[in-house]
């Protein structure tokens, strides 16, 4: 690890950048959970459009 | 019926509430001086239609021409010539009928002399100075009728005008809101016989869609009752 030019105020500076990254990551995590929900609902829709697996699943054209 | 421009001309009128369509495609033409009766179950879109015609709600799609002005652009032009009688009397409960009517007269810029004759006509001269909150619903409805016709509108929009009124009162107000008034009228009513009795054109709504539009002579009470099925 290259010697970072830290001095006594180091922890505060590190703290600031950590807080910034933490907030951005938290935001991305929330967005990711929303994405997961969209995916789950899409799966539901997918099942909805193919109710009879045995016969040839007729394709329902979504207008 | 002289071939004057229709008082109301609607073409594919729509109004949405979020995803739900409160009104989906209403089209009709009502000649000046004629009366349109609107029937439909609760939530069918009758009140929404009335509020659009009264320029209180903007249409989301389609064309609407009322008294020669196309909505919503010319709303302000026709606004002073429309009288609305809704479920809510639109009166300040702490003010007396006279004070309420004087407020409306000033707002519409009409002389206040007409207030006394109107109050006399609906038999409220005696109670003219008691706050509206002390009046019964029937008396408040009479004051609301006075408010709706105070500025001598050309178009009357009436949502169950005779609700809470005793027969004597219905008789008293008919020159103001009945056929005798000579105005173009749109009436919402759940009393099918009374509604048909006054109508020249009938409109049936179900879940916002126009399911029935006929001249009065081609309609009988049975077809109207199906709307509520």
């Amino acid at each position, binding site marked *: 690890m290259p010697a*970072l*030019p*830290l*001095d*006594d*105020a*180091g922890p*505060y*500076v590190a*703290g*600031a*950048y950590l*807080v*910034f990254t933490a*907030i*951005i990551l938290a*935001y991305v995590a929330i*967005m990711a959970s*929303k*994405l997961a929900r*969209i995916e789950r*609902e*899409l799966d539901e*829709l997918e099942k*909805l*459009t193919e*109710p009879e697996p045995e016969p040839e699943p007729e394709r*329902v054209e*979504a*207008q | 019926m002289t071939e004057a421009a229709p008082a109301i001309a609607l073409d594919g009128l729509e109004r*949405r*509430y*979020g*995803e739900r369509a409160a009104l989906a495609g209403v089209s009709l033409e009502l000649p000046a001086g004629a009366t349109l009766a609107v029937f439909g179950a609760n939530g069918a879109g009758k009140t929404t239609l009335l509020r659009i015609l009264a320029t209180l709600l903007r249409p989301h799609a389609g064309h609407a021409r009322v008294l020669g002005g196309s909505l919503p652009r010319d709303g302000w032009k026709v606004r002073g010539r429309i009288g609305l009688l809704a479920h809510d009397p639109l009166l300040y409960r702490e003010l007396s009928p006279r004070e309420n009517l004087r407020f409306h007269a000033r707002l519409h810029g009409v002389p206040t002399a007409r207030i006394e004759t109107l109050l006399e006509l609906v038999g409220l001269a005696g109670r003219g100075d008691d706050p509206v909150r002390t009046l019964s619903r029937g008396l408040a409805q009479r004051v609301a009728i006075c408010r709706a016709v105070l500025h001598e509108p050309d178009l009357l929009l009436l949502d169950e005008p005779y609700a809470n009124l005793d027969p004597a009162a219905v008789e008293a107000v008919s020159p103001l809101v009945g056929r005798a008034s000579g105005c173009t009228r749109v009436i919402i009513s759940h009393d099918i016989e009374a509604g048909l009795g006054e109508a020249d054109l009938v409109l049936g709504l179900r879940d916002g869609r126009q399911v029935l539009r006929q001249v009065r002579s081609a309609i009988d009470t049975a077809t109207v009752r199906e709307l509520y099925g």
Partner: protein
Amino acid sequence: MYGRGLRFLSIASFVALTVAFALVFFYAPNDADQGFVYKIFFLHVPLALVALGGFVAGGIYGIKHLRSGRREDDMKSYVAIHLSIILGLATLATGMIWAKASWGHWWVWDEPTLVAFLIVFLLYSCYQPLRFAIEDPERQARYAAVFAVIAGAFVPICFMSVRFAQASVTHPRVLDSSGSLPGSMQLTLLVSLGAMVLLFMTLWKYELTSKHAKAQLRTLKRRLALGA
């Protein structure tokens, strides 16, 4: 339709951020009087400026929505303000850390821009509760746009009146003295600012795409529910 430039934007902002961080820690010299603590300045100022820019953008899209009535403008205004509130939170956090590092206590009332930013943040944090308190989506969008315009007009006045109130303070106002920074620091600040703007654009497009997808999903579900 929003996802088009997303991949390019995310790469660009990633590269810009790494370059900026590298410049801050290895290239920019320590500040004359504040020393190493000054590094927070390169993060705090871009965050504040981008957050304020986001609020202004929210106001502009609000005006567009009021004129056009299109839902896209409302969505853009909502996401811009929503993101700026998050960046505003980061701005306040880094500002407090900076205050603790250089003046010894977590909150300092002498620093006018930090105080004004807190007031603006308090006002904009009512944006979400206001939106959720209105049911009709049409009215919600319109009232949110009106709020965005009012709050947008409020920001400059708030900064001016707070600065007037602090004018007598001798404390060196660091934020707007950037003009007198030595060349290398100015470059670092500009690159950090650029990186922060790119980050904002990326997250903004990212959330717009996600919201748009959710809306499409809902309409698809409704159609299929009707059809099935």
